[in-house]
């Protein structure tokens, strides 16, 4: 079941040296690296059967359409959808969440209605609801988090009211790494008649996800964080909801028939895919899903748990280093931290000279950082290709950072 270190040979980018050191890529929460199987799928599309889908009668167009729809079926199966019609290709999670806010939200949210999110949301699961709430004069409410980066669910009964129409939350926090109890929150939301939307950007790549078992209504994810290309992601939605909703964007492909003054809509899922889709990258995402399924998502999760445990241990030994978020039990492969007296930017800068890539900044969770009273944090995040030796390089680099800045104290 263990993932062998030889898996790294599948990732051409990891072979290089940066600043004279082997590349240590610890920013997979921002974007993952791509195995050659995915890169080859892209090259194959452009070299062998680049054609527009759902149109041509010629052979390569047929092949493009077949491969595009086969990728959809694989991705749909990967997250436990009840058929490929429930899987809409989007650019990313941001577009998936905006689709729900616009297509469902604008039709169902009225003045005085409530939208419930959490305080740990990425801006992509916050701003679309702010826009909707402002337009519809609805109220945006927030589930708070505690000092350990876990959601405070004691007051959930009061936060979800009869006016709550949508509860939208992140599955795994991109900053704390917290794995949120989505199924539990979904049950509470459904008991009051609210829909549940999930930002699965950081969960889908790293653990088995089954949207039916989670019991949610919409689930967004993005391909580039799960070994796939940038610019392709997806929205899963319950079929009945997708059928009832009006389209998001209008244009070609999403229509059934068009007159000068009106149009009728295509079937699912194409009703929500206006314009020429991102065919190559969808096929690339299909290849990424194949790759992950060959490893097995249980093995992926187990590997990251081992790496995360080791990282928590090694970083915990560094004096003046403070780890944000919960313990290993409730955490995905993300470790954000602060070092006394050294700004996260400076931490990342020093690490770069060691070939180590980490993220420094607010990770698009400004309200989370504001609540903690900080402007930024440093973040290391892991994936299938991360090995313990890289955590050692990180720990050594952090000690060197402290040394360099010790003259500054």
């Amino acid at each position: 079941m263990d993932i062998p270190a030889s898996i790294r040979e599948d990732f051409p980018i990891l072979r290089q040296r940066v600043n004279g050191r082997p590349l240590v890529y610890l920013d997979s929460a921002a974007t993952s690296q791509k195995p050659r199987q995915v890169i080859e799928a892209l090259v194959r599309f452009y070299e062998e059967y680049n054609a527009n889908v759902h149109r041509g009668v010629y052979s390569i167009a047929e092949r493009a359409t077949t491969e595009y729809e086969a990728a959809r079926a694989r991705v749909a199966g990967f997250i436990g959808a009840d058929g490929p019609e429930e899987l809409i290709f989007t650019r990313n999670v941001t577009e998936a969440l905006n689709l729900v806010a616009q297509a469902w939200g604008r039709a169902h949210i009225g003045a005085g209605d409530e939208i419930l999110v959490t305080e740990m949301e990425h801006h992509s699961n916050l701003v679309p609801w702010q826009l909707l709430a402002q337009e519809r004069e609805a109220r945006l409410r927030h589930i708070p988090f505690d000092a350990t980066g876990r959601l405070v669910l004691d007051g959930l009964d009061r936060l979800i009211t009869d006016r709550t129409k949508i509860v939208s939350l992140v599955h795994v926090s991109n900053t704390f790494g917290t794995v949120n109890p989505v199924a539990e929150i979904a049950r509470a939301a459904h008991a009051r008649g609210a829909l549940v939307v999930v930002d699965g950007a950081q969960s889908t790549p790293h653990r088995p996800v089954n949207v039916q078992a989670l019991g949610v209504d919409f689930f967004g994810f993005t391909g580039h964080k799960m070994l796939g290309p940038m610019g392709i992601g997806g929205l899963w939605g319950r079929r009945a909801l997708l059928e009832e909703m009006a389209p998001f964007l209008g244009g070609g492909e999403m229509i059934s028939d068009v007159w000068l003054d009106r149009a009728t809509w295509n079937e699912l899922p194409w009703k929500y895919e206006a314009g020429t889709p991102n065919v190559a990258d969808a096929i690339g995402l299909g290849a990424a899903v194949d790759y992950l399924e060959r490893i097995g998502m249980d093995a992926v999760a187990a590997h990251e748990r081992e790496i995360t445990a080791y990282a928590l241990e090694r970083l915990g030994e560094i004096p003046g280093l403070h780890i944000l978020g919960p313990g290993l039990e409730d955490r995905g492969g993300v470790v954000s931290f602060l070092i006394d007296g050294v700004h996260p930017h400076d931490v990342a800068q020093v690490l770069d000279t060691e070939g180590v890539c980490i993220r420094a900044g607010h990770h698009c969770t400004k309200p989370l950082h504001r609540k903690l009273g900080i402007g930024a944090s440093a973040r290391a995040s892991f994936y299938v290709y991360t090995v313990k030796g890289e955590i050692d390089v990180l720990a050594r680099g952090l000690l060197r950072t402290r040394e360099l800045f010790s003259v500054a104290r």
Partner: protein
Amino acid sequence: MSLDDLYREVILDHYSHPRNKGTVDPADIVREGANPLCGDEIRVSLRLRDGLVEDVRFDGKGCSISQASASMMTELIKGKRVEEAERLIGALKAMMHGEDLIEGLGDLEALQGVRKFPVRVKCATLGWITLEQALAELASR
């Protein structure tokens, strides 16, 4: 690329012992600046008297480069004429965008190394651009 180019001792000194940190009270103007990319925030406050910068202070959260640069800035422009402060802002910006350093900028020379790290140029200019906006607002009153 050497880290020593970036983290010169004088920069680390300004970072750990910032000069003129705080808020001028009373101030003629208080102006806030931010780098939305990294979340760095700065507040520059100043008071003029007879065309001179009588007092200038900065406050905020940020990396060593943004904080040290702002600290050097307050040290350099305090007591100078407004026109001279504006000239120095121009000189710093020009230097950060690749032009040669004008003589007599003292500690500021240490910031030259930042140019080798393009992402950090915005850190070095944050305080200065905020000061520039403050002076422009005062001039327009």
